[in-house]
């Protein structure tokens, strides 16, 4: 690895390590496998950065690599619940422990459960939106048009609004 690439890797680590950890934990329920997936993202990123020549923003590059590794992980994993496109989901799925007292943990678990049940691209849009990325940034990472991104975000906001106290002014997609 060149010095530049190693510097970029360290910069990416400082800025995006928590986001990649959240992504890994969202797509993989098993904590140990989620940690392995996180490390797999780091390795893929480390390898790929040797090819980084400023073709896009570092953030876009990092998210693309991480989301593609996550998508491959989901594809290769043992078959889970059948994937249901976002437009066919009417309510948030149960995280399996509805009586928990930890409301926040339950909320996160429910969102993660929703993400695990969505096809890759829908899940990628939701995770990036949760990270606070704009429609243009989500479009850059996923390759979806801004319109397709906006449609998906509108749908997920509708699903979440009924369950959580979210500020409607936050996460507005331009």
């Amino acid at each position, binding site marked *: 690895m060149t010095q530049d690439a190693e510097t970029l890797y360290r910069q990416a680590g400082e800025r995006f390590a928590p986001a990649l950890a959240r992504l890994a934990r969202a797509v993989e329920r098993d904590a140990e496998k989620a940690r392995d997936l996180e490390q797999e993202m780091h390795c893929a990123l480390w390898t790929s950065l040797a090819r980084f020549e400023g073709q896009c923003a570092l953030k876009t590059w990092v998210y693309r690599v991480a989301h593609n590794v996550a998508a491959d992980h989901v594809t290769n994993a043992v078959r889970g619940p059948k994937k249901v496109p976002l437009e066919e989901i009417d309510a948030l799925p149960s995280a399996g422990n509805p009586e928990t007292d930890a409301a926040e943990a339950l909320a996160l678990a429910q969102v993660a459960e929703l993400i695990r049940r969505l096809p890759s691209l829908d899940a990628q849009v939701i995770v990036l939106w949760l990270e606070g990325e704009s429609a243009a940034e989500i479009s850059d990472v996923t*390759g979806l048009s801004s319109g397709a991104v906006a449609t998906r975000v509108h749908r997920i906001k509708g699903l979440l609004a009924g369950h959580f106290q979210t500020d409607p002014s936050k996460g507005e997609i331009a």
Partner: protein
Amino acid sequence: MTTPPFPNWTESAQDAVFTEPTEVLLKADRFDQTVRRRNIREYAAGVSGVVLSLAIAGFFAWIGKFTHVAAVLILGVGFLVVMRNLHHRASRLERLIEEPCIDHLRRQYLHQAEALGSVGSWYIGPLVPGFLAMQLAIFWDVAQDRGWEEALADKGWAFAIGVAFLVGIIALNRWAARRLMRKVEELDALN
């Protein structure tokens, strides 16, 4: 970037850090070792197939069944071609992990669909001459003693089952390839 809509989400995993480059190097090395081990296993399987084919061919030569010798050798060559094709296909897979997610998914689906849809030519096809030669040798053996009609009546069912099995494998793989192509069409329809 907008204000994160769901603060609980972005507040979690704040203590996460990237794997140290030295550890990443070790992992990459372990991955290379895994690939090397897989290649060695593939070559060992190929060599075992050749050795086994030669041994069986030698046995048939020893008992004077030379049609069987030819059939086993053709089948052995077929296995070698399949091994080569497997290796060639595995090494040809491009992994541009930094491309936009939709392109990455599309590429993966297309690669898998192409591999599954053409399984008849690169996996089943090379084994067909050996399979046919072996069947012919079996028919020939029986026909020498009892005539072709009885040979067909006696051994024809095994041949039919073999053909049905191979056709079934091809059909199943083509069905899976069509499902993947539908996924590609769904991706194309998203934009």
